[in-house]
């Protein structure tokens, strides 16, 4: 037991070193910022918040291409809200909240599929029930055991309070998500484009479906510190929808949505610091602004291009 504890302590040390190295890497471009742009990053909490924003914005952005193409927006919202009772129970049992959140989020996504398959209730109604029911259960439990500040942090994120443990968990989740997408992107492409042909060539579409769902759940759970339960779905939908308006191929779409995710999170962090505004909300507003820009200015599908075509 003592050896295990020592090993875990060593792992935590190593993880801390990796996080510090990543932060140092991020400080290189920050140092190039003109004027007093770099000033806010003299604080340790802002450096950690920046790393968290880059990782969360990037992974959410990467997955958001598939969320948009698979029409999983409401599913993402369901999972994120249904995470709350898991967080509460983990708090009660003194477990890492990531574990409780992952379990209850995954249970909710499985329950949606179960209700849809075995009853006449359709998918959207099943998601509405689990979203609200799960969220309500979490609210009631947390109301009994924790302070209002605690609840606010869970619901709306607390990126300025992100610690090393949380960063390490996010990093591991990011690596899992990126590896999953890189390994299965061609299978996922065929599965989302033409699921019957995917089954025809012997792909295990059921496993692929649930694996993508679990990776999505993991991403949502580690994003809670940064954007919170209520707004995380925006980071999973808006970057992908923005890229969808701009791109005709999946590869570029994934690259653009990842970029929009990172830019939204980082710009949102900086703006929220400058304006003393809620960080999660500001990030989502920046993402929404990117979407509006694409909606108006996109070269082929934008409003201006469409008006020009109709006029010409």
């Amino acid at each position, binding site marked *: 037991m003592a050896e295990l504890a020592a090993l875990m302590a060593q792992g935590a040390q190593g993880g801390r070193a990796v996080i510090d190295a990543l932060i140092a890497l991020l400080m290189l471009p920050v140092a190039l910022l003109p004027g007093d742009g770099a000033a806010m990053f003299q604080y340790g909490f802002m450096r950690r918040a920046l790393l968290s924003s880059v990782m969360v914005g990037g992974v959410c952005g990467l997955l958001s291409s598939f969320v948009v*193409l698979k029409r999983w927006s409401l599913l993402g919202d369901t999972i994120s809200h249904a995470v709350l009772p898991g967080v509460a129970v983990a708090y009660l049992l003194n477990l890492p909240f990531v574990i409780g959140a992952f379990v209850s989020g995954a249970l909710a996504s499985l329950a949606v599929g179960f209700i849809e398959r075995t009853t006449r209730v359709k998918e959207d109604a099943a998601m509405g029930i689990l979203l609200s029911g799960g969220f309500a259960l979490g609210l009631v439990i947390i109301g009994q055991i924790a302070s209002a500040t605690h609840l606010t942090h869970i619901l709306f994120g607390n990126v300025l309070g992100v610690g090393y443990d949380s960063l390490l968990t996010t990093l591991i989740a990011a690596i899992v998500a990126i590896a999953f997408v890189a*390994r299965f992107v061609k299978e996922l492409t065929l599965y989302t484009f*033409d699921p*019957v042909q995917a*089954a*025809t*060539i*012997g792909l295990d579409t059921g496993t692929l479906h649930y694996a993508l769902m679990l990776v999505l759940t993991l991403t949502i759970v580690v994003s809670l510190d940064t954007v919170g339960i209520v707004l995380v779905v925006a980071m999973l939908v808006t970057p992908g929808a923005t890229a969808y308006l701009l791109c005709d191929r*999946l*590869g570029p779409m994934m690259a653009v949505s990842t970029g929009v995710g990172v830019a939204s999170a980082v710009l949102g962090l900086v703006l929220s610091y400058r304006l003393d505004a809620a960080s999660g909300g500001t990030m989502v507003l920046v993402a929404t602004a990117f979407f509006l820009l694409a909606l108006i200015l996109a070269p082929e599908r934008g409003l201006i291009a469409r008006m020009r075509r109709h006029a010409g």
Partner: protein
Amino acid sequence: MRALARPRTEAAMAVEGRGLAAGYGSLSVLADCDIEIAAGSLTALVGPNGAGKSTLLKLVTGALVPWRGTLSVFGGAVAQARRAGEIAYMPQHEAIDWDYPLTVRDVVRLGRLPAIRARGGWRAWLPMSVQPGADTEAALGALDAVGLAGLAHRPIGALSGGQKKRALLARALVQGARLMLLDEPLAGVDRDSEAVIRRLLIEARAAGRTVVMVTHDLDGTRGFADRVLLIRGRVVAAGTPEEVLGVTPPDPVAAALARTGG
């Protein structure tokens, strides 16, 4: 390493089903359906809407699991044939989201997925864009065969209805499957596309492939299909196009529709 088209004893039947029952939720579509499709034939499945033509194809693809009954492909297990890339499927127009961000070439190149997986090795784990150039060459060759070489880099959604079908046919061809399942390959296509698709299906059969297609155009099977299976919850008539046209009323689809009230 496993070869994609490994030599095996030639089975007489490409598809053999016994006592198949299938449906969606509580809706039964096929009941006690026996079916035989000879290897190397060009077979047309005809019948009214909701008769189970597409459902039969979906049982072979594995997208739908039969409630009862057994199914074999080339005398062996269906699952094995699927994994070996021996079956290709071409969906109906309505089943696809044509706004999906893929170029025509990207769509056709997805037909190389079984070959890439069969090749194995570390490279099979990586995205399509870093696969060997031969896969892209094969996709472009198939696009040339269907007459779409000039449109390879267009978004798939920018093509006409007939061109989209030709692109999906190219995907099936580049897969090199022994059994091609086509759901309404000729529905809503222009004359040129129809001629191209018919010619390529006849060539595919000549090359020893088995072609199974769903169609509403019974007259169009004359001089084209080897066999026609009339489906209405099961196979109710089977024979050459002339034989099946003979046993059915002049306009069988309309008559069948009137009978089923559909």
